[in-house]
């Protein structure tokens, strides 16, 4: 299997690469010097043996087994119905290979707590005893016994640390391994996010006057609770403020106060934004009288989430924009209090100058079957994705195949506004919304750590119990961090627009064909495939937006390589390699095989080593566009971007000689040897991520 052919690459550095591209030096010019150096890889710093350290050594241990290389994914979140798996790579920790060890799972401790008390107390009552293999991670992968609670009350995720007690002395000592020595636990067990939280919910209707009607959901025992975040819901045109029970009851059951207000959408976006702004202010200013004052003193006005649907979805962006621009000044909150804006199938009447979330954390919901805000290239107003790309802070999206515009609210009597194959019911979409919304809100309101994984791990492998699982359920996720996050962006295609140089200034080489770099904006009014329209199906930008990326294709083995700037080649402090990609709708290379697209990601170091991972290894590739027709001829709707993140350590698995301290190139191999035989791909935002 090509992707697991690490020994081959170690035998002859670059040989696997050469098979793919024919001329290693012309593709990876930085190889020339490195191959001659003979320098030994120094490995990732954090997991290297540290004999002087008195505490247990850091190691990633918890996660889930994979069917192909890298054979194990160290991830931090699982639901209470799933087994806890742990693995040790014996090539990384050869001193423990073959040993019989105790594996302890403990309630998470802070580093200070660990330093003060290394005595092991298993949360299940007793540790597991495993005998490690000697050859590879597969021989050291185990499923632990016992039951672990995921009940964190109103929080999401109970943190646990894992200790491999090598000397079996019941203490976490220098010869042992620990996963969770830090702020973040080794792993988190989570209650199903699609299911109600622990609190009973009370709903009240309130009116403070014209366009100050509010449907409010709060925990019934609010008097016993502290200050809770405020989630404001702004409905869409033709919708009603009482149609969001699924959001209101769900989030209130998990400790939020939710206020869905009458939204003045018919005149337009400006008026809708006004009602979002004024209702938020009115609510905060009248807590002493609303619902008899029961919420007075229990609303945290510094933790506000705005959720808007359709025109209301654009309206919440406009509301933020107005505060940002200084044309509206709230009385009882500030811009900094808006912790998250989430738009459900928003329109884009106002464009970049008017509907702009600027520095807000932003989230977007899209329904592939939406027959109102259709997403077709014929109408900028009906395309939602540009709003996502305008955020300069953390921004993420979720797209459901088969979801109509009306499936995002809860009014059973209303039309789904849906067209296309394999339509989802309103109940299905509502449930999926709840499953994702809880961690989304928890992440940005409370800084919840495990919630982050819900925002980027493929739906196929991380979905809450309770969500529909039929074959019509197809979900795409994007997760993008801002520059302030400290990631190293190798190429986001926003600068250095020549195709042979990345935005970070380093060379880009390729032999994929029909390679184009440009704005992610379908150039005409339909999705009909045309070889002369390379950005067909792209709806991430309007003519006024600047979001750029690349498009290319292959029909035989091909490559694409990004050289890493010299100053950035020590990647040992970075946890993930990340990029986003999409299949290009209706292209013959896309429709040749309907299904996820697979290819191979390669790291190359300055010593001439390489290691590669198949995208499919994690359980899903790049999604086939939703097979909806109209908007021109052919089947397939907008190009569905997905974020793919691969843990850097995965490239080192089973003794792969790759030096994460000297990564010279990030490469991608396509074609029958490396994944899907043919394909046409959009690609963007290649970076090393800290977390």
């Amino acid at each position, binding site marked *: 299997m090509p992707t697991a052919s690490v020994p081959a690459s170690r035998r002859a550095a670059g040989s696997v690469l050469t098979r793919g591209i024919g001329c290693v030096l012309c593709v990876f010019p930085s190889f020339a010097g490195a191959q001659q150096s003979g320098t030994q890889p120094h490995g990732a710093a954090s997991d290297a043996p540290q004999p002087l350290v008195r505490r247990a050594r850091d190691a990633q241990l918890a996660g889930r087994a994979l069917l192909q290389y890298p054979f194990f994914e160290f991830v931090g979140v699982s639901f209470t119905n799933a087994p806890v798996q742990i693995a040790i790579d014996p090539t990384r920790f050869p001193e423990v290979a073959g040993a019989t060890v105790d594996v302890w799972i403990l309630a998470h401790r802070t580093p200070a707590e660990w330093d003060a008390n290394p005595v092991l107390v298993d949360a299940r009552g007793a540790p597991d005893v495993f005998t490690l293999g000697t050859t590879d991670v597969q021989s050291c992968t185990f499923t632990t016994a016992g039951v672990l609670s995921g009940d964190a009350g109103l929080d999401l995720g109970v943190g646990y640390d894992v200790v491999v007690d090598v000397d079996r002395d019941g203490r976490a000592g220098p010869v042992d391994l620990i996963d969770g020595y830090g702020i973040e636990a080794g792993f988190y067990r989570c209650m199903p996010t699609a299911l109600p939280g622990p609190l009973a919910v009370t709903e009240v*209707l*309130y*009116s*403070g*006057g*014209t366009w100050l*009607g509010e449907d409010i959901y709060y925990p019934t025992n609010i008097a016993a609770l502290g200050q809770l975040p405020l989630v404001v819901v702004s409905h*869409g*045109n*033709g919708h*009603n*403020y*009482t149609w969001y029970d699924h959001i209101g009851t769900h989030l209130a059951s998990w400790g939020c106060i939710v206020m869905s207000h*009458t939204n*003045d959408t*018919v*005149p*337009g*976006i*400006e*008026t809708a934004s*006004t009602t979002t702004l004024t209702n938020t202010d009115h609510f905060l200013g*009248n807590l002493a*009288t*609303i619902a008899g004052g029961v919420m007075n003193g229990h609303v945290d006005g510094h933790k506000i989430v705005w959720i808007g649907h*359709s*025109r209301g979805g654009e309206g919440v962006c406009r509301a933020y924009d107005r505060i940002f621009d200084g044309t509206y000044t709230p009385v009882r909150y500030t811009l900094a209090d808006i912790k998250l804006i989430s738009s459900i*199938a928003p*329109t884009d*009447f106002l464009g970049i100058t008017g509907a702009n979330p600027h520095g807000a954390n932003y989230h977007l919901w899209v329904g592939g079957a939406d*027959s*109102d*805000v*259709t997403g*077709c*290239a*014929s*109408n*900028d*107003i*009906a*395309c939602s994705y540009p709003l996502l790309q305008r955020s300069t802070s953390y921004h993420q999206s979720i797209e459901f195949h088969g979801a109509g*515009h009306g499936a995002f609210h809860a009014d059973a009597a209303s039309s789904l506004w849906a*067209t296309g194959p394999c339509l989802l019911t309103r109940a299905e979409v509502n449930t999926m919304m709840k499953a994702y919304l809880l961690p989304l809100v928890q992440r940005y309101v409370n800084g919840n750590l495990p919630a982050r994984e819900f925002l980027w791990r493929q739906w196929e492998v991380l979905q809450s119990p309770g969500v529909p699982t039929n074959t019509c359920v197809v979900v795409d996720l994007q997760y993008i961090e801002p520059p302030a996050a400290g990631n190293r962006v190798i190429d986001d295609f926003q600068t250095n627009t020549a195709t042979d140089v990345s935005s970070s200034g380093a060379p880009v080489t390729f032999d994929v064909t029909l390679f184009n770099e440009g704005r992610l*904006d*379908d150039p*005409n*009014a339909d999705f009909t495939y045309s070889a002369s329209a390379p950005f067909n199906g792209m*709806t991430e930008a*309007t*003519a006024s937006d600047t979001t750029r990326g690349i498009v290319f294709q292959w029909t035989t083995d091909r490559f694409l390589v990004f050289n890493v700037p010299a100053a950035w080649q020590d990647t040992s402090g970075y946890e993930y390699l990340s990029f986003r990609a999409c299949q290009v709708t209706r292209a013959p290379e896309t429709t040749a095989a309907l299904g996820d697209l697979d290819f191979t990601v390669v790291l190359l170091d300055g010593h001439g080593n390489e290691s590669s991972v198949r995208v499919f290894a994690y359980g899903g590739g790049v999604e086939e566009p939703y097979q909806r027709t*109209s*908007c021109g001829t052919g089947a397939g709707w907008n190009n569905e971007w997905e974020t793919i993140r691969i843990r850097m350590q995965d490239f080192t698995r089973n003794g792969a000689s790759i030096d994460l301290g000297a990564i010279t190139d990030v490469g991608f191999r396509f074609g029958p040897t490396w994944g899907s035989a043919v394909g046409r791909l959009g690609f963007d935002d290649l970076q090393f991520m800290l977390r």
Partner: protein
Amino acid sequence: MKLIATFLLGAAAIGGTILLLESRVSGVPVEAAPRPSAIEGEVRALLAAVPFALEEPWTHAWRAERPEFRGGWLVVLEVDPKLVEPTELAQPVLCAAGETVERLNHGHASGRVVGIVPSVLGPDGLPELELARATFYFGAPALPEAVGARWIEREFTAATQRGRAPFGADAIAAARGQGGAPIVVRDRVELDRLAAQWILEHAPEEKARADQMLVPVTR
């Protein structure tokens, strides 16, 4: 994506305000049946009309200039329901002569729209806008908040050219009879309560909208 300009006005300066009138609005959902353009029969009847006066002014958010008003007409119109079916995209704008009508319900299920036609009040406390001179019509699809005097004038001219005209004296008299005596209310909230009763009567399918207007106000 291509910008669809069903009408292109660009920027117009009206009343000292720069109005960015839709240069890229299309009210046609891609897969919906083509939305009818404004046609004969677009506003089919004036079913009820009553003058009102507000002690506290309200802002007319349905046009770009955002004028305040203290009175006008509360009306019930019978319209082509296809023209008022709610969509997230642009919809035809309901107008009365040189003014936009604030629609208090959608009207797509019943074909009946309860609306407010703002007007300056005369010395007698009644609207200066006479129903006998008020042609009701649908302008092109747009966001009402973005249309200004020039746009309305153009659409009014177009409506006149396609034969739209004020309702006859008999129809107006009947509508006035249905509407009852002129209303003087304290504020918009009280006007909404009256209007909600008309929604319940004429467009009962939109009870939820009426209920929303009838929730007791906590002052």
